């Protein structure tokens, strides 16, 4: 099956007073219909900037997408004019955000905000759009959807707002859904419900899901494949199963080692990766992780390691492993 989302060589920079910040560098991946791909990495590694680049929502200036292609069902979004791009947003590629508390407009009812999406992309009457909004709210398992559609965001809980966001994002049945840390701001019990919901809708609608998260537990539960980002670059890619069982890049090894485990003795300190992420405006010549890496060799400081296949379907960018 041809992938519905194909990203290749995506590079996004920000021009700031202190210099050029390389937020996303040469990132490539693809997602098939009905598949979930997770993008993993710590804060500031370029996950959200990748997502916003896909939607072309990077503020320009100061941001600029300098290279790459983002193909949704064969159409390269980066070559479209703004008007055509607007038609793609919401209808072909939609996004849900981290903070459900602030991502909905406080002055409009939830129903109206969903209906707005429908009437924007489909030539239907206001009534049909409103009916669809209620239908979508029901779809995301919000009880009493007719009443809830008439409510304002502040009358809903965080979990319910995030469901409403999902309802809005999927109202026009987009081919690709980008979920940027959709559960970070929610309670743990609500997190599981929201993830289940996204998963069920993905299966039902055949949507390709790009799940951005720093929570490896979330990845393990929901993603088919994952890519690991570090300092704006993709450093490892493969199936979730493979990467968890046998990580190649020392960064992912470190990340996995830092996950607390049940049964570990209480006196044992959590393992952490020493050091901090380098500044994106002042990246080292070699591997960006070399400074923090215990197995770094001389070559790591000299040249950026290319992404190479370590095993079938599993690639990593590391000189050592």
């Amino acid at each position, binding site marked *: 099956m041809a992938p519905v989302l194909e990203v290749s060589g995506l590079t996004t920079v920000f021009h700031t007073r202190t210099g050029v910040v390389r937020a996303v560098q040469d990132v490539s991946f693809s997602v098939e219909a009905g598949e979930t791909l997770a993008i993993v990495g710590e804060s500031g590694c370029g996950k959200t900037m990748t997502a916003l680049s896909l*939607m072309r*929502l990077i503020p320009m200036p100061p941001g600029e997408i300098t290279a790459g292609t983002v193909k949704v069902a064969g159409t390269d979004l980066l070559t479209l004019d703004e008007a055509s791009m*607007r*038609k*793609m*947003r*919401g*209808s072909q590629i*939609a*996004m849900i*955000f981290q*903070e459900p508390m*602030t*991502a*909905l*407009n*406080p*002055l409009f*009812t939830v129903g109206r905000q969903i209906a*707005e*999406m429908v009437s*924007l*992309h489909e030539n239907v009457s206001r009534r049909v759009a409103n009916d669809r909004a209620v239908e979508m709210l029901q779809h995301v398992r919000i009880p009493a959807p007719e009443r809830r559609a008439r409510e*304002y965001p*502040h*009358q809903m809980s965080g979990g319910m707002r995030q469901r409403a*966001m999902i309802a*809005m994002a999927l109202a026009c049945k987009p081919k690709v859904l980008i979920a940027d840390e959709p559960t970070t701001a929610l309670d743990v019990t609500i997190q599981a419900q929201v993830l289940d919901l996204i998963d069920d809708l993905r299966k039902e609608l055949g949507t390709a899901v790009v799940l951005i998260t720093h929570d490896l537990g979330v990845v393990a539960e929901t993603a088919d494949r994952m890519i690991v980002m570090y300092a704006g670059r993709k450093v490892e890619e493969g199936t979730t199963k493979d990467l968890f069982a046998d990580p190649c890049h020392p960064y992912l090894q470190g990340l996995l080692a830092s996950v607390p485990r049940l049964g570990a003795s209480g006196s044992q300190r959590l393992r952490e990766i020493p050091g901090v992420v380098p500044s994106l405006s002042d990246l080292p010549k070699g591997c960006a992780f070399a400074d923090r890496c215990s197995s770094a060799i001389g070559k790591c400081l000299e040249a950026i390691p290319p992404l190479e296949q370590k095993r079938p379907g599993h690639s990593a960018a590391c000189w050592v492993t």
Partner: protein
Amino acid sequence: MLDYILRRLALMVLTLFGVSVAIFLLLRIVPGNIADILFDSAGMIDPAEKQQITKDLGLDLPLVEQYARWIGGLAHGDLGYSYVSEKPVLDEILPRIPITARLAGLALLFAVCTGVPFGVISAVRQNSWLDYILRVFSLLFLSMPSFWLGLLVLMAFVNWFGILPIYDKAPPTWGAFALMLGVPAATVGLRSSALIMRLTRSSMLEVLRQDYVRTARSKGLSEGAVTFVHALRNAVLPVITTIGIETAFLFGGLIVTETVFNIPGVARFLVEAIRWRDYPMVQNLVMFIAVIVVMVNLIVDIAYMFVDPRIRLRA
């Protein structure tokens, strides 16, 4: 909601009571009353006559009694008589109200209709030359005293057009009518316009950074829809509040502008009444202005509730 409005009305009565006491006392603290003025400056009357006038007008009574008489009359709709013209205060004020109301309304309309759009433009084009120009001019207009601005406007008209936009009961043409109303209204409203512009700009910049604006863009809405539907509606909330406060300031500007442009409205009349220590006139005019300011603020708060469901549903 009704509950809220009733509570507000009760508070309004309290505010007006405070205003009435303040204006009453202030007027008596200012040295001289009408009898002194007639006696001292004009030398029109002899000391015995001065005594008689003071007694006739009740100015020799204790302050509390004077106050009680005024408020008592007010409660019955009796505003008393002007010391100067000796006509009922109501008959003096009523014909002047529409003139001032029209001017104030136009000034406010001008302030909102220029302030909000320019504020939006300035925010959307932040740090462009257009933004800089708008910001410099708004600061200029904000710092300009309205009497000076009024004189400048008059001078400009005389210099460039050779005419004065002077008040006329029956202006000869529509153009003269528009000029006669528009120029003073713009002069009074310019300060408010500048304030509203700066406020809209900063509020808009704040709102444009919000997550829901990004959400609106991610839906595929056009920049226009994002700016005017999703952002502006949130950004005008603080502006609405300011409109209420600006109404009070507007009267200050009106007094000066009515004088400069020779408009026979309430505001200029007030200054004359103060000069003559025409207590019933001043007291009732100030109360009238206070009622308007308080009412406008109530309307503003109700408008706020209509725009913001978070306030409406809590009230």
